[in-house]
């Protein structure tokens, strides 16, 4: 059931061009609707076709995320300790890991309704939280909140909080521990290893 929530974490960002001028909550809604529409119509995605899901995420969702900010947020005080090259690699690996998690969720959407809660923001704000809810039978609605910041290219997401759990900062203690034990390169190695094993798993499943 909750993979749906992960799915919806993504599902909102389907717009690419005209999103720049939209209010952040309007933008999220527009993109959510677009992605849901695609999922509903595409039997391959519903069946878990990895290639098609990746493509959908690539085109519709990823342009609306700020992955370097996400990585910095997950790293916390360790971020400035990484050199430029390490930061680049860390961002790439963390991005791969997050995208895998989210993509795996997209095929599970089943007509659940997403409600948008009123945006609490002043006119000039450049950093807002867009709050949404998904209704489920027999349990309280689950919240999915998106922290977004205004950038030259429009609003970008830098944190996704599902049911009160940040999918970004939830990694911070793990990252701290990895860095303490194996240094910055140890963390990079762990992330790369994780991504490789996920890739192997996915490719063996699709055959």
């Amino acid at each position: 059931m909750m993979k749906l929530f992960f799915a919806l974490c993504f599902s909102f960002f389907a717009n690419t061009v005209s999103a720049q001028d939209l209010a952040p909550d309007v933008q999220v809604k527009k993109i959510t609707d677009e992605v849901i529409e695609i999922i509903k119509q595409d039997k391959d995605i519903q069946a878990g076709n990895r290639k098609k899901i990746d493509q959908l995420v690539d085109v519709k969702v990823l342009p609306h995320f700020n992955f370097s900010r996400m990585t910095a947020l997950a790293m916390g005080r360790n971020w400035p300790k990484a050199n430029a090259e390490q930061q680049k690699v860390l961002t790439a690996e963390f991005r791969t890991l997050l995208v895998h998690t989210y993509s795996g969720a997209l095929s599970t959407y089943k007509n659940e309704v997403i409600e948008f809660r009123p945006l609490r923001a002043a006119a000039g704000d450049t950093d807002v939280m867009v709050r949404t809810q998904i209704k489920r039978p027999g349990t309280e609605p689950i919240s999915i909140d998106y922290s977004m910041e205004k950038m030259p290219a429009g609003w970008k997401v830098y944190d996704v909080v599902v049911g009160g759990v940040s999918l970004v900062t939830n990694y911070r203690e793990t990252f701290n521990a990895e860095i303490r034990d194996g240094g910055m390169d140890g963390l990079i190695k762990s992330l790369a290893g994780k991504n490789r094993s996920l890739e192997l798993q996915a490719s063996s499943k699709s055959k």
Partner: protein
Amino acid sequence: MTIILRRFLGSLSVAAAVGLGGCATLGGSPNDPLEGYNRAMFGFNEGVDKAIIKPLASGYKTVMPEFARTGVTNFFANLGDLWIGINNILQGKVGAGASDFGRFAINSTIGVLGLFDIASNAGFEKHNEDFGQTLGRWGAASGAYVVLPILGPSSVRDGLSLLAVDWHGDPLWYVGNIPTRNELIGLRVVDNRANLLDVSRMAEEAALDHYAYVRDAYLQRRRSLIYDGDPPPEPEPGKTSESGDSKETAARARTELPPAQIITERGERIITAADEELTPAQEFSGASVRSAAAGREAVGVIGAIYEPRIPSNYDALLAVSGNRTALAQTSLRP
């Protein structure tokens, strides 16, 4: 993930769990002084789950049609609404509590013994409350993170609440016929686990360290629940300066990344060029942030970090201040 199994075997002794905590590891997460014991118990629970509960849940999901499973979930959820209502009232949320009792009345009758969740469609929203949250609302800190046998992730506060109080509020424990009672409890465990099959798989895939991922998600989740989904920014340097609500964040957002250089409103550099080494004190600026960090160190092993006390005038503060930053500062005052 065994979170949902917490109600299962409600009479297990938490004293045993806490008492085993002697093997704390050094240098780990400050919220987890019992990490050595916790990791062992987590491994044990994973083993039980893999060998018994997960296979049962998978089979159940395969055999039962979806509408039937929803009915089972609704049935148990309906029984839970009474205890949820009591806890809402204990927390002073009388309106929410009344709504929970209303849900129970509607779903037990029109909803055919709770099989259909009519109340949700009628606008009575389901809530999530338990006695651990009530204590948190009253100002009790969570204490150390504790993995309970079978029941899974918990904390000193939540574990004691669960084992000493919550099960008294669970109607299933009052079923007189013991075999029937046990069957019902077993069914609830399996149904809950079936609902979580996808989540647990995804958490496993997402995690670098499964144990730490589940722990940190649990702690974040509980903190959010105590504030009913609207927690103030966390009293922790990284989170405070980067979470979505503080003014500082807004200032930083204007000076967009590359994140190697971010400057606060006051022009102080809180993250510098990548190749520059900073002392921890330089990394984060602002007295409030620093004192929060110092407080965190001082609290140390007790692990009383995650729940800043909710001031008794919480609602008034919220109404007056209109923003959560001010509230956070108030609630952090020693």
